[in-house]
């Protein structure tokens, strides 16, 4: 203690008499970050207008209650030093446990600004719902190993932009895989379409390539699923009508 009259500052070190080696930092209230406030008593309310003669009986007399004038609040002063001797106080000299710091924005990330015109009263207005990626499902967990092989990441990403990028990658892969599968198992359709194009150099080339592609896949048996499905469908169409409409 250097000066008894001076209030304890936050950086002051205090030696405990019983433990000469121990030095503690006392808890001192920080000055408030806003200026001192003083309160003025409220002005008395204006007197009510006089009641015209003849109306006294219809209107009760105005109340005579007046609010008590407010005492002015004393300006804020730093607290006086404690009268208790420092030696009588118990201080925990051990360092406080580390406080896990976190950013409140992690818990409540700011919502992206949405244009006001999109906010409709009817949440059912748009045909495509605004859904997020949500939690894993049983199906997702079952096939997660397979998805990882081709680059799908099923866990939620940190930011919306990263999630959107993953969704775009996922969508592109779905489109690419399904187009490739259709090219293999449905080559006949490509051939049929190419044969309808008007004859030009480019379309003739395409027709030849598509025809060759379809023939080779047919030899390999890749057209079998489609052919079987088509036959079964035509048979079901002919059911219950005798020979009419039977597949040719």
């Amino acid at each position, binding site marked *: 203690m250097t000066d008894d009259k001076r209030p304890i500052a936050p950086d002051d070190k205090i030696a405990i008499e019983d433990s000469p080696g121990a030095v503690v930092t006392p808890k001192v209230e920080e000055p408030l970050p806003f200026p001192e406030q003083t309160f003025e008593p409220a002005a008395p309310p204006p007197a009510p207008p006089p009641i015209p003669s003849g109306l006294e009986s219809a209107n009760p007399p105005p109340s005579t209650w007046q609010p008590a004038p407010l005492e002015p609040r004393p300006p804020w002063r730093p607290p006086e030093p404690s009268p208790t001797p420092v030696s009588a106080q118990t201080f925990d000299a051990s360092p406080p446990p580390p406080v896990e710091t976190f950013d409140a924005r992690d818990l409540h990330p700011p919502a992206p600004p949405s244009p006001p015109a999109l906010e409709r009263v009817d949440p059912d207005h748009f045909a495509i719902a605004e859904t997020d990626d949500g939690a894993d499902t049983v199906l997702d967990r079952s096939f997660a190993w397979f998805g990882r092989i081709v680059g799908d990441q099923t866990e939620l990403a940190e930011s919306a932009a990263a999630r959107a990028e993953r*969704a775009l990658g996922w969508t592109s892969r779905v489109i690419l895989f399904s187009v490739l599968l259709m090219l293999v198992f449905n080559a006949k359709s490509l051939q049929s379409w190419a044969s309808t194009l008007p004859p030009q150099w480019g379309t003739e080339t395409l027709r030849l390539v598509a025809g060759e592609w379809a023939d080779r896949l047919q030899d390999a048996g890749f057209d079998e699923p489609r052919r079987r499905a088509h036959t079964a469908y035509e048979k079901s169409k002919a059911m219950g009508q005798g020979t009419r409409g039977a597949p040719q």
Partner: protein
Amino acid sequence: MLFPTMIFLFFFLIVYVAAWSLERQNANRKFFLVLASWVFYGWWDWRFVGLLIGSALFNWWIARTIARTERRSTRKWLIALDVVLNLGVLAFFKYYDFFTAQLIEGLRFFHWERDVPLLQMILPVGISFFTFQAISYVVDVHRGKVPPAKSLLDVMLMMSFFPHLVAGPIVRASDLLPQFAQTPKLNRGMATHALLLIAWGLFKKTVIASELATGLVDKVFFDPASHGAVDLLAGVYGYAVQIYCDFSAYTDIAIGLAALLGYRFPRNFDQPYRSTSLQEFWRRWHISLSTWLRDYLYIPLGGGRGGLFSTCRNIMITMLLGGLWHGASWTFVAWGGLHGGVLSIERLWRQFKPAHWPKWPAIVGLIITFHVVCLSWILFRSESFDMALAYLKGFGNWSTPAMEVTPFLWLLIGLGLGMHFLPPRAVERVTQMFRNLPSPVFACGLAVVLLLVDAMRPEGIAPFIYYQF
């Protein structure tokens, strides 16, 4: 370029790759989408691309001028000019020959025959849709509901965007412009939903609608007099299913394509044949048109504010014009008139129904509503009143055996009607199940579905019914 064709598949793949590679340059992306939409439209007839561009330019300028003008009278003149010119273009292409033919008939009636030239014009595909869209944009700017578009590019894209260009849904500026202002984003739920909608739409169009059209409906409506009551009954039920599957399939595919590019369209169908009244039917059928007619025709006429008579009058005017919007033919007007009449009767019934009368079971309302709608489909599908009358007379002919309808076609009709009684938002529920599948697994499932759809579809694909409107 029809959606369920190979050429459109290649077109869309190019657009998809290019659009997402321009993801971080929104203006360039929109410019590319406008160019792609013009290619899509020009594939059918490139001469009408100019009409599309001209319409977008004109409406952009009018909306911009209205927003900058403070004088109320000038704004009114501008909005009137916009509506008149838009409807004038529509009337010229769509109704010139129709009204000229009526004029010739009228003159003949008064023995004053004249040679008035018929132009036999080709109707630009989708003109009714993009004209209505343009009118709604300018009127909304005039009413202060939406701010004018920040750039001409946004208006061009709003009117030309290829998924909705030729057969709707009529997407309003308040739905699209805010989406154009920001970089589109995709999530797996949206992508899954979009792909499922496309597959579901292809199934409805290429299997159910096409099969019913070629196997039953076209034959029965071509010559109703030579068919018995069973065929005719199956024919009208089949047409009810066909037109729903055809039009809702187009809408589903359009919504799915737009979603794959990062944009969301409003719902256009919501299981319409489960309606228990005609009023409910119009809340579920072609929602973008019915809400357009409500907001820009019925309410400006006075709506339901002026008493029962004026309400019924406004309903009738709205539905008659709604019928005429579908095509230049009196059968379409009669179709609208029938709907307007029944809607008015429903309104009167609600007003004057004795309070102590019990409420009908919902199933009764559903059956009555469905058959009223089927009756109106006869007018809608028939090429003339004579054909429609012949069709109606045929319901008394129970001696002729069924020649066209087969158990398989009954099954398709049942399937088309049965899908109205699935739980609401069934595709959304399936989306929730599948959205977290790994891409190869989902792609395999999708490919199997598409393969089956392709194996089942008949050879050749007829254009969507609403292309002609």
